């Protein structure tokens, strides 16, 4: 039987990963999907489960007169997505894991943001989908910045540090030329991601040996807003405005309610906050890189000690 369309559990294989603070397991008979996923996360593979994990299962469902051919993507035994095409599977697996991360780490605050690190100082880029977070994060990685996470900035409620979850950067097709302009390319084939069209993935761990960061305090918050053709510019943002904006990009606000505001308030008290109009990627990276270098040099007890590429 073609394993691609087999629902026989005996054809299934499982691979487990520990991706920063997130443990996940992927089970499926679709070996090509396992291989593609492993190509992104081989550096994080573990032999056995050593704690609570997100269990994702992709089960091909046979075609019948009542149902079109589809794949059931379930998370912790609940079917979340039913993509029809093979090219959609990897993005949906990623999506399914993301879906569950706030439940796996319920005490943390989950902000819709990319998170990076320079010399132990966290920089988060919060924003809604389409604001250019991932593309900007990819560009900044080429400047020697270290990677914490894309899509999520996971904030520890006690230390207010941003925690690492180095999932692969998901780059939409319209941004491929931009990342090519800074010398990056997506890994492997391209995939369909719902209404977002074709996407490609970049695993920052593969870019260089020290590309991943550990948990670190948030020093700078930059709200990017991609505006095609715009000259990149920065505006300092009042901390109350930043807290207000962060509140609106908090994934698990309703779980936290009152404490969320306290965590956010504490987070912005320790950070400088900016709004960024981003345009051409290289020029935008220049601007942000310079801002961070100057800001961290000011904060550093030994000015000039901060070294970034």
């Amino acid at each position, binding site marked *: 039987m073609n394993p691609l369309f087999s629902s026989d559990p005996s054809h299934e294989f499982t691979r487990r990963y520990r991706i920063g603070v997130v443990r996940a397991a992927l089970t499926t008979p679709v070996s090509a999907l396992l291989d593609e996923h492993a190509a992104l996360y081989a550096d994080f593979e573990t032999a056995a489960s050593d704690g609570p994990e997100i269990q994702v299962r992709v089960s091909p469902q046979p075609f019948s007169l009542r149902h079109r051919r589809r794949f059931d993507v379930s998370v912790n035994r609940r079917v979340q997505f039913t993509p029809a095409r093979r090219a959609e599977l990897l993005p949906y697996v990623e999506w399914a894991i993301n879906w569950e991360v706030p439940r796996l780490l319920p005490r943390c605050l989950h902000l819709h943001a990319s998170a990076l690190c320079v010399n132990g100082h966290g920089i988060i880029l919060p924003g809604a989908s389409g604001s250019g977070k991932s593309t900007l994060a990819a560009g900044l990685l080429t400047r020697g910045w270290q990677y914490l996470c894309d899509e999520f900035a996971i904030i520890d409620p006690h230390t207010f540090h941003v925690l690492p979850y180095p999932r692969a950067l998901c780059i939409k097709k319209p941004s491929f030329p931009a990342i090519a302009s800074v010398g990056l390319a997506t890994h492997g084939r391209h995939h369909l991601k719902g209404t977002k069209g074709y996407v490609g993935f970049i695993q920052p761990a593969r870019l260089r040996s020290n590309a991943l960061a550990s948990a670190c305090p948030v020093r700078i918050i930059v709200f990017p807003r991609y505006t095609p053709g715009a000259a990149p510019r920065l505006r300092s943002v*009042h*901390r*109350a*405005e930043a*807290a207000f904006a962060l*509140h609106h990009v908090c994934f698990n606000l309703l779980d936290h309610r009152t404490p969320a*505001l*306290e965590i956010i*308030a504490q987070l912005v*008290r320790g950070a400088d906050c900016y709004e960024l109009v981003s345009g051409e990627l290289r020029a935008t990276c220049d601007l942000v890189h310079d801002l961070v270098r100057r800001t961290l040099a000011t904060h550093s007890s030994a000015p000039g000690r901060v070294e970034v590429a």
Partner: protein
Amino acid sequence: MRGLPDMQQDTSTAAVWENAFVDAVGPLRRGDIVAHELDGEGIMYDPRSADTHRLNASAWFIWNCCDGRHAPSDIAARLADSFDVNPAQALHHVHAAIDQFHKVLLITEPRVVPLDTQGQGSARAINRHPAAPSTLRSGSPRPESASA
């Protein structure tokens, strides 16, 4: 009745009620609102509606004066002392801000005290309660100072 959680917890002491209402001469902020000051501005969370509000410096100042003990005119005088506005402008801003606070339910609504078993204590409380209806009635334009 909303907005006076501490007083509600101690309703057995008539004096507390009496003093509270005698002292209440102005708008009173809700006690369950979570508010934080950030560089002179305010960010607050309403646990009932799950709404977040951001207040600029003057709105935050007015909010902090809404302790039930200050009439709008008192708050305006304080505002004029602390910000670069004349008394008339200050009073306008205070009315506008209080009106906005009321619209988004950040301050207590006009109080309806349930009757107690004797039907007297609460009635007295209502009579003694100057919940500053004039403040809430003010038809001020939308303030620039509070945003949701």
